């Protein structure tokens, strides 16, 4: 049952989940979670256009296309917020739907083209880890490792940047460059995950591990470790479960595993419902005795 290939794919999605858990924590604290969502959806037109232009389903080409439209969507959101009265939530909604709409149009064009039927581009919507080749996996390993290493390198600077950018600039930190690197890394995380998790659900892997970890800890360092672990477990377990039935997409199962971990955290973590309830009862009891 556990074939060698499956083990490698599981290891790959575990690394992906770990990387997404780390960059997702930074983007969550920066209140940019939904920007990640838009950037993930915006990868679709890039994939379809890259395929139409080259006629090949080479992962590197598709990923370059995805990265370009994905980064463009982030830039559009920042531009709209900076130069109009439109607030971030509306700007994100606008950009996400426009880019995804364009993506679906191009995908339809691809599907009706002669090459379309075998292209398998539809798998990028919900992710299909089983379709990964050795080259795809190698790419995923390298990319996820880069994301993890760079994030750890910038840990201290990003912490200050996110908490207090004005102070960061005041002591000479290159604030704009640090922000840009973080954005690049988030886009890299997204394009790394589109094959196994898919463009629609990729943002869940950025958001759910981070918010689950936040419930357990009040320190950034432990939040990062926990979020990375939750992301890694979700990726690995999700891939394993989805491999048990043919035709099952990987992305939705990974998200279901991650959200189960969130639900458990929501119930039993120190900041969770159960502990709040127990504290309330204890408080009332003390009141009765005193």
């Amino acid at each position: 049952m556990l074939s060698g290939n499956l083990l490698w794919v599981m290891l790959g999605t575990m690394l992906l989940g770990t990387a997404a858990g780390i960059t997702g924590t930074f983007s969550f604290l920066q209140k940019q979670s939904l920007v990640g969502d838009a950037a993930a959806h915006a990868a679709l037109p890039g994939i379809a256009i890259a395929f139409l232009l080259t006629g090949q389903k080479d992962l590197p080409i598709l990923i370059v296309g995805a990265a370009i439209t994905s980064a463009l969507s982030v830039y559009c959101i920042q531009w709209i917020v900076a130069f109009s009265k439109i607030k971030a939530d509306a700007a994100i909604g606008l950009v996400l739907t426009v880019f995804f709409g364009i993506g679906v149009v191009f995908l339809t064009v691809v599907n009706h083209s002669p090459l379309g039927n075998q292209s398998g581009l539809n798998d990028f919507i919900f992710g299909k880890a089983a379709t990964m080749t050795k080259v795809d996996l190698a790419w995923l390993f390298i990319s996820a490792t880069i994301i993890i290493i760079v994030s750890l390198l910038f840990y201290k600077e990003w912490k200050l940047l996110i908490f207090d950018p004005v102070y960061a600039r005041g002591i000479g930190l290159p604030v704009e460059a640090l922000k840009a690197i973080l954005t690049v890394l988030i886009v890299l995380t997204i394009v790394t995950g589109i094959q196994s998790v898919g463009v629609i659900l990729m943002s869940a892997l950025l958001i759910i591990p981070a918010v689950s970890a936040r419930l357990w800890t009040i320190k950034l360092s432990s939040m990062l470790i926990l979020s990375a672990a939750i992301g890694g477990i979700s990726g690995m377990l999700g891939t394993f479960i989805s491999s048990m039935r043919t035709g099952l997409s990987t992305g939705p199962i990974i998200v279901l595993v991650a959200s189960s971990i969130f639900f458990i955290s929501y119930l039993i973590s120190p900041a969770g419902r159960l502990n709040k309830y127990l504290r309330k009862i204890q408080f009332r009891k003390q009141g009765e005795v005193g």
Partner: protein
Amino acid sequence: MYALTVENLSVAYDKKIVLENANVTVPTGRLVAIIGPNGAGKSTFLKAILNQLPNKVGKIEILGKLFDPKSLVVGYVPQRNAVDWDFPTNALDIVLMGRYGHTGLFKRPSKQDKQLAMEALESVGMQEFAERSIGQLSGGQQQRVFLARALAQNATIYFLDEPFAGVDAATEKTIIDILKSLKAQGKSIFVVHHDLQTVKEYFDYTILLNKTILASGVTEDVFTPQQLQKTYGGKLFMMQETLGANNIC
């Protein structure tokens, strides 16, 4: 040498001009109040000095030089509500950020950095709260942590944006005592301040600001009913009625 020299400073947000043609020189070793009504551009003035605003014209010098953030001569204490206190970290970690400029890119804070951060926390009376999550601190405690961070940076000039807003009397006393001891060490401190009643007691130098710098100098010379009238306009009449002008000036 002047702690601060500002020549013909103007700042605009979009189309709205917030500061116009502001000029001031302040000698070193002073505890300076920056006062003016709401919306007068006090925070903007600080941010312009700290090189945070792209849309400005004019010349600003700190200790006779153009401000270079990397020199770490300026310690900035922002308004407390400028940050999100839900950020997952503890008080000591925030103070440690004051050492980041000294630590350098990519390097982790050293033992000495941690020692200095702890000492800064002690000097604001917060050593017991070092490990406390910042979200669980009271407003006054958060303000002290911010001051401790600037102290840990070991700057020469300090800029504080409304450090006394919404803090209790004990915290206000702690903060002003620290500022006075910094002044005694020859450092220069600039404070955006709102409570006119304490200006004379706390500050030996005053800058009056409303869209531009209306007056600056030794507090006794500048903090006069006429000047305040000029700065606050009609609003001061109400204060004169309730407090009596003699009480403040």
